[in-house]
């Protein structure tokens, strides 16, 4: 490119500029150990699974982030180590966790169900630790059951639902039908959709449970029966978009193209609001996608993304503080200066009121990125990302670190 001009900075400028000095690089030889706490649970196979879901989703994201931060660490004298705490049994996992705490470990990435996360967070000695929740989407963990020592990397269900509803508003598709599965998680997802619909003035024209046993699809000619059931479940309603709440994938993939009226499907299937999606290729994410695929031999999931963000956040805090001291790292993670780049555009940071990482929500189907929320025009007085999910005035989280 072109040659460039120079200028000797005056002393006044230098003195003024000194106020803005960035932190220096760490002393050599620091090791930062992060414990990855996960419960080994049997794999759930969705009804329409053409290939088995990966068994190591979450963990591989942490692995990649360790590799990324260690590349950075070469220049800061910091080495990052991921230590596994994994058990089949909840009580054994709690015991291992308590032992790690007793041994002085303070930095944890958790990949466990909500109830177990609360048990871990309430373990004796855990108040001075940090639990980076890489995989849960439960609103209660950001609300009445929030814990001062927990931060949440994945968007809550409220954020996902808001991301979808903002998009529907932007399209003028303001009448939805909601079809909810039988799992407890489906009820939570549906509740988030109802709340978001109310918030963005989307009307729910019908709110129905899905009770048909989807196993019929696997029998020859079973698809006729499924089609009839979907018609029955969706007829007699005038609406723009059918929103399904089926987190485990029990039936949601068998709704589109079978409805009584020709309407698009969104929610847990169809147009899905998510933290991460395979078709995402904006904001330099191609680099992250390819780096992950090279390492894991598969594409990155939202859970992988959550774990990647969790470890990257620790790495960012350790780099910026030039410290391996967990208390300094934790303070920085919670402080106003912390941000992490998440390949989704803006810098991401934790909400002070509930420990939730504020972030854009991707809207994608299996093959294309449709949009990214917040949608243009959905503004917020301090950060437009806070138009998604629970804002400070509405929070029911009252834990203080």
């Amino acid at each position, binding site marked *: 490119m072109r*040659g460039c*001009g120079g200028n000797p900075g005056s002393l006044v400028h230098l003195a003024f*500029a000194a106020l803005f000095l960035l932190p220096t690089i760490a002393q050599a030889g620091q090791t930062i150990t992060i414990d990855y706490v996960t419960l080994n649970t049997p794999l759930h196979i969705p009804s329409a699974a053409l290939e088995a879901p990966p068994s190591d989703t979450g963990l591989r994201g942490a692995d990649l982030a360790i590799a990324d931060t260690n590349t950075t660490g070469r220049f800061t004298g910091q080495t990052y180590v991921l230590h596994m705490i994994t058990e089949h049994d909840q009580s054994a996992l709690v015991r291992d966790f308590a032992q790690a705490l007793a041994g002085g470990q303070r930095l944890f990435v958790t990949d466990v169900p909500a109830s177990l996360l609360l048990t871990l967070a309430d373990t004796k000695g855990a108040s001075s630790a940090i639990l980076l929740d890489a995989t849960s989407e439960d609103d209660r963990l950001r609300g009445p059951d929030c814990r001062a020592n927990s931060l949440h990397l994945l968007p809550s269900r409220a954020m996902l639902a808001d991301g979808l509803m903002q998009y529907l508003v932007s399209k003028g598709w303001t009448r939805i039908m909601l079809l909810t599965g039988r799992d407890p998680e489906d009820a939570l997802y549906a509740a988030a959709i109802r709340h978001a619909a109310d918030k963005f003035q989307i009307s729910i024209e019908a709110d129905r449970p899905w009770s048909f046993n989807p196993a019929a699809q696997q029998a020859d000619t079973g698809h006729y029966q499924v089609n009839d059931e979907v018609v029955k479940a969706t007829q007699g309603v005038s609406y723009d978009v059918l929103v399904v709440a089926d987190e485990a994938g029990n039936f949601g993939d068998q709704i589109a193209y079978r409805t009584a009226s020709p309407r698009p499907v969104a929610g847990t299937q169809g147009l899905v609001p998510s933290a991460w999606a395979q078709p995402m290729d904006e904001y330099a994410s191609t680099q992250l996608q390819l780096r992950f695929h090279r390492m894991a031999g598969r594409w990155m999931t939202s859970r992988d993304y959550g774990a990647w963000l969790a470890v990257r956040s620790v790495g960012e805090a350790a*780099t910026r503080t030039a410290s391996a001291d967990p208390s300094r790292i934790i303070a920085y993670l919670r402080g106003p200066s912390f941000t992490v780049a998440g390949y989704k555009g803006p810098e991401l940071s934790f909400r002070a009121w509930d420990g939730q990482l504020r972030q854009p929500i991707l809207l994608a189907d299996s093959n294309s990125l449709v949009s990214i929320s917040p949608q243009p025009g959905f503004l917020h007085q301090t950060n437009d990302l806070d138009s998604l999910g629970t804002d400070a005035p509405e929070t029911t989280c009252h834990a203080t670190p």
Partner: protein
Amino acid sequence: MPRNPIVKSSLVLSFKKELLFFLVLLWLHPAFAYRIFVSNEKDNTITVLDGASLKILQTVPVGARPRGIVLSQDGKSLYICTSDADHIEVLDLASLTVTRILPSNPDPEFMALSHDGKTLYIANEDNSQVSVLDVAGGRITSEIPVGVEPEGMAVSPDDKTVVCTSETTSMAHFIDVATHTVIASVLVGSRPRFAVFTKDGSKVWVSSEVAGTVAIIDTATHKALHTITFNLPEVPTASIQAVGINLTDDGKTAFVDLGPANRVAVIDANTYAVKTYLLVGQRVWHGDFSPDEKYLYVANGISNDMSVIDVQDLEVTQSVPVGQSPWGVVIAP
């Protein structure tokens, strides 16, 4: 690109009629004509425009995903990072054909040429290294490990130091050319994308895309002296992403391309104060000055055009459609 000394010295003289006439003659002389080369990331072409008329002279097909482009020292060739083709293509500017393929190692995104024209320093975005290419020999002579996703590359005026920015590591790495080792790494804002040395080599300007800032780093102490921030109330903060930087030859003014904020910030390079913002096309990436520095041409990655900025009046005078996802701009004879 050496500037034209006749035009420069003329500017300080009074505007006598004869002189003006002489200047016009000079301007019309073919030696002062120039062409604008724009790399188009998505349609795998280089758009060639005439500098005077801004008409497209030719659209040259090149390898997959052309991004960073650099003019050879003799001004006769354009080096093109064809990122997805995993090599550097050499476009002969007389025939407008690719006459040579140079190795680059995987995913070359951006590169910088030593001032003696002999060495290209290439950022390999996908594998965290800088490749050192002997241009004449057409071979990689060294690979230098840097941070994650290296992108910005700059060579110091004395050719002794190379700066590479790594986006995910958020650092500017100072590489000693003699030993090919990283001698210092300076933390800057998130996703540093571009680096440029001041003419006297005393400072490096580094833009950070996600943080939306520009750090001014002292090359002697390897400390950030100042961080420039941008304040555009009418634009969402997340859209303010600093990318390309162009410094005027007199060292007085910097132009910083602000990506999806669709603006170029004009900065007093002595006080680091933002003087104004110029509205350009969507997602403005990189730019280059005309040889007389009257105009700055910037590529707009989403609106598929190039904005023309009048450097004196600080006005956007024109926008010219180019290819798909224009990325870099280089001015050449």
